[in-house]
């Protein structure tokens, strides 16, 4: 929905001691009438109405207010109704406020808002939607605050506001008068709430310039606080003993009294996910968890292994329409294994549940549904519960859920004491959420260089979109011109944009309702769906004897896509001479009103594939170089965008080459970072270059997940070109188990004691 040009912003001057301006979030985009009228019958809905729009539309009717406050000391505060999990949203929002008010970024204090149930669908951080949804409201609030400050100064100085300027937080006017903007914070405050409007700056000077993260100093000094770093009186370390299968419940505990008497242990309680132990230190918790003898009830997927799940996916694969008469076809089936979206910070939360109230601290991307469920679990009215959103140590889809917050609530209630509950890493891999296993089946009909149709059937184990997106999407289901779709299918349709003009295009989703713990993983369906599509495009180029970049260019629907292809071709030296066993590969992805192209160079020569790594780990082919071009419409902070693309590249490499979960009788075998092979230093490219395209639209698109799918396509295609065989099963090393699995019982490993033998 491009095409908004400059507009006046509406907001409210609040009755408050110092200046405070509130604006609605979401309202700017409220135009469901237009959207549905424009929808085509061909279900390429993502081209017209993507997930970002859907989330904004869902938010529109309930749009709560967000407020910018100006204090007398010249600082400006804003409680952001979004989560910061490393993606840099707090830095970008700081820039927007500093921009409109002409103050230094160090004068802006962005905090994360507590759960605000009145915001309904408007406190969701997901679908790379944050910048898109918050860009105009935040600029509006700051622009109105600027207006109010200038009016107040003009009043005191007996001049006209139009004759005043703000530079670095200082208001200047005729006759050399000047004063810091904070000195008008009181005078500018409303005595009654009234409506005001303002225009954003015509020529932004800060937006679009590279800025470092506002929390960089805290991060490098150890001062940045995550949930487990907070000091809540009485909240002692708490861990949970979990079963040998996913969702196994506690039958009975044989040695409860014995474990309760262990040193340091203060409390033990059976909760719905296992046996919770609270103790003086985490070591005491680990010892107690390992000592527990529990009889477990069955879980929900006890019999399932990789092979059985794969067979179920094959079984629900609908037949492809027959080849078009006279047409040639390219047929392809691409498999992806389960993968873990475990962040480096494991699932964790602090809970203090009292008989009459509760307080929770956790990194939550969907704090409102969390708030409601926590209240229900605590047996309290939602109004008696406070949920604080803490900065997260990564998310990758995990923090859309509040598994640890619910457990902490249950444990604190059962024990009658505050708890600081943390998942062990092994649990985080085995019982934490996973990205679904999938098979994508593609049939492309073409007649020579003319592509007539593109069919893609995507089969996957069911994805849990329930907590975060669920509410937003369910509220929109009846407003979409598509009948009988589950909300997962709606989600699929609104995220899978097709960047190529491939004639009649039909992409559908088919899920097997198996009860794994699932969630998105730095993108919901796209890495797998786009990866498979890019392989098909590569096969088409090969069959036609065409240059694969040129082929993508010629079929690209949008000029923006051609521009990023040209950019990576130029910077990445597309087509350069490469030694045998090495190759370039390219992939593109379009989503969230943004697009991204990735060009990689891979080395599949035996000496590289078998390079040694000290201790445990896998090597294999190495991506040596990656070049990324990204177009997000309005790049707010290019340095932050580069960082996100860098992360996306490493995620994509892992998904294609090394990282997966092996499901075995209802539990992943992986239990450590030396089992689940996320990209490590010895597998990362030595040279990554990201080019951020200058502004192309008026709406900032999403970027946090965008680069993963393009990288998956690029690495897979490069591998195919380097080895002469196009891979169709990912990651390519999934067939070999490269580690000795940890035992299932006890559920977590003991910490070693020989650390001093490994100093360096």
């Amino acid at each position, binding site marked *: 929905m491009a095409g908004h040009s400059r507009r006046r912003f509406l907001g409210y001057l609040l009755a408050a001691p110092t200046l405070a301006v509130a604006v609605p979030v979401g309202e700017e985009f409220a135009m469901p009438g237009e959207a549905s009228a424009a929808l085509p019958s061909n279900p390429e809905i993502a081209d017209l109405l993507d997930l970002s729009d859907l989330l904004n539309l869902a938010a529109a009717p309930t749009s709560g207010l967000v407020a910018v406050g100006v204090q007398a000391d010249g600082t400006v505060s804003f409680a952001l109704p979004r989560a910061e*999990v*490393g993606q*840099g949203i707090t830095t970008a929002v700081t820039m927007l406020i500093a921009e409109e008010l002409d103050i230094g970024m160090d004068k802006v204090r962005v905090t994360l808002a507590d759960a605000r149930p009145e915001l309904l669908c408007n406190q969701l951080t997901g679908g790379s939607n944050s910048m898109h949804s918050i860009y105009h409201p935040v600029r509006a609030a700051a622009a109105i605050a600027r207006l109010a400050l200038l009016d107040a100064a003009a009043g005191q100085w007996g001049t006209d506001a139009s004759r005043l300027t703000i530079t670095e937080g200082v208001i200047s006017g005729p006759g050399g008068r000047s004063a810091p903007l904070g000195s008008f914070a009181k005078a500018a405050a409303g005595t009654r709430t009234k409506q005001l409007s303002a225009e954003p700056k015509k020529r932004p000077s800060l937006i679009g310039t590279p800025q*470092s*993260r506002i*929390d*960089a*100093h*805290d*991060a*490098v*000094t*150890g*001062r940045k606080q995550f949930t487990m*770093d907070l000091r809540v009186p009485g909240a002692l*370390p708490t861990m949970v003993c979990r079963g040998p299968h996913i969702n196994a419940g506690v039958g009975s505990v044989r040695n409860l009294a014995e474990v309760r008497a262990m*040193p*340091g242990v203060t409390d033990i309680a059976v909760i719905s996910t296992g046996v919770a132990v609270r103790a*003086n*230190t*985490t*070591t*005491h918790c*680990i010892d107690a968890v390992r000592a527990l003898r529990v009889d477990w009830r069955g879980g929900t997927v006890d019999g399932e292994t990789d092979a059985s799940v794969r067979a179920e996916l094959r079984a629900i694969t609908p037949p492809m329409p027959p080849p078009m008469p006279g047409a040639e076809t390219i047929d392809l089936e691409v498999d992806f294994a389960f993968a873990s979206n*475990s*962040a*480096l*910070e494991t699932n964790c939360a602090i809970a203090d549940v009292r008989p009459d109230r509760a307080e929770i601290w956790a990194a939550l991307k969907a704090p409102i549904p969390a708030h409601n469920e926590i209240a229900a679990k605590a047996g309290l009215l939602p109004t008696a519960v406070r949920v604080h959103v803490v900065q*997260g*140590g*990564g998310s*990758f889809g995990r923090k859309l859920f509040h598994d640890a917050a619910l457990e902490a609530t249950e444990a604190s209630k059962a024990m009658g004491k505050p708890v600081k509950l*943390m998942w062990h*890493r092994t649990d985080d891999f085995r019982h934490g959420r996973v990205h679904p296993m999938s098979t994508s089946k593609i049939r492309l009909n073409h007649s020579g260089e003319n592509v007539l149709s593109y069919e893609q059937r995507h089969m996957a184990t069911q994805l849990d979109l329930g907590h975060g997106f669920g509410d937003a999407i369910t509220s929109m289901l009846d407003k979409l011109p598509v009948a009988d779709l589950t909300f997962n299918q709606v989600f699929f349709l609104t995220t899978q944009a097709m960047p190529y003009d491939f004639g009649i295009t039909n992409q559908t989703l088919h899920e097997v309702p198996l009860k794994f713990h699932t969630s998105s993983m730095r993108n919901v369906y796209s890495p797998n769906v786009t990866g498979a599509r890019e392989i098909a495009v590569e096969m088409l180029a090969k069959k036609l004897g065409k240059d694969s970049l040129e082929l993508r260019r010629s079929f690209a629907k949008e000029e923006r896509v051609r521009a990023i292809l040209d950019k990576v071709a130029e910077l990445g030296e597309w087509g350069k001479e490469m030694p045998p066993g090495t190759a370039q590969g390219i992939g593109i992805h379009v989503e969230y009103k943004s697009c991204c192209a990735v060009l990689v160079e891979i080395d599949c020569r035996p000496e590289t594939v078998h390079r040694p*790594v*000290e201790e445990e780990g896998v090597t294999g082919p190495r991506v040596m170089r990656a070049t990324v071009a990204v177009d997000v419409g309005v790049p707010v902070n290019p340095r932050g965008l580069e*960082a996100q693309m*860098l*992360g*996306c*590249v490493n995620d994509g490499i892992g998904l294609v080459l090394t990282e997966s979960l092996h499901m075995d009788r209802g539990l992943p075998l992986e239990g*450590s*970072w*030396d089992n689940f092979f*996320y990209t*490590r*230093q*010895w597998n*990362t490219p*030595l040279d*990554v270059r990201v080019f951020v395209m200058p502004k192309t639209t008026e709406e900032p698109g999403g970027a946090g997940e965008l680069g993963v799918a393009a990288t998956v396509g690029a690495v897979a295609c490069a591998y195919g070109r380097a080895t002469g065989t196009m891979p169709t099963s990912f990651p390519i090393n999934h067939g070999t188990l490269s580690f000795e699995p940890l035992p299932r019982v006890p559920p977590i*490993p003991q*910490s*070693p*004691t020989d*650390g*001093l033998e*490994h*100093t*360096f």
Partner: protein
Amino acid sequence: MPEHSFILNGNRVSVDTEDNVRVLWVLRDLLGVTGPKYGCGINVCKACTCHINGKAFNPCSVPISAIKPSDEITTIEGLADQRSGKLHPMQEAWLEHDVAQCGYCQPGQIMAAVALVRKARAAGTELDDAELDKLRNICRCGTYTRIREAIHTGAKNM
């Protein structure tokens, strides 16, 4: 409960706890020093990396009983110059390259980087790509390339 004493970021500290409690939890749970992060507890992720007597170690895998009263432990909180507050050149390099994303792994990354540079210096070896490949610290946000660039910058100024 046995009393354990050691030097933490230049100050003598003591704690009463069982012998087997790992140093990471002495720091985090008992002393409230939260710069070193938990990422695995089994000496794999390296998020907890600190220094002992100037060398990198992983406190999640060392029982407090193995620490002597004369041992000096440095966490990320103690890396900057304790008197002037001036950041260590490696921290400065991290700022210059805007390395951190979520930041969770970064205290461990910086402590490991400082030790790696010192080790290479002592051995008179070059900090080349092969040496950097040996760093085992996980960064799930994927900041690896910026980490490598920052280490080169930091090394120059150390």
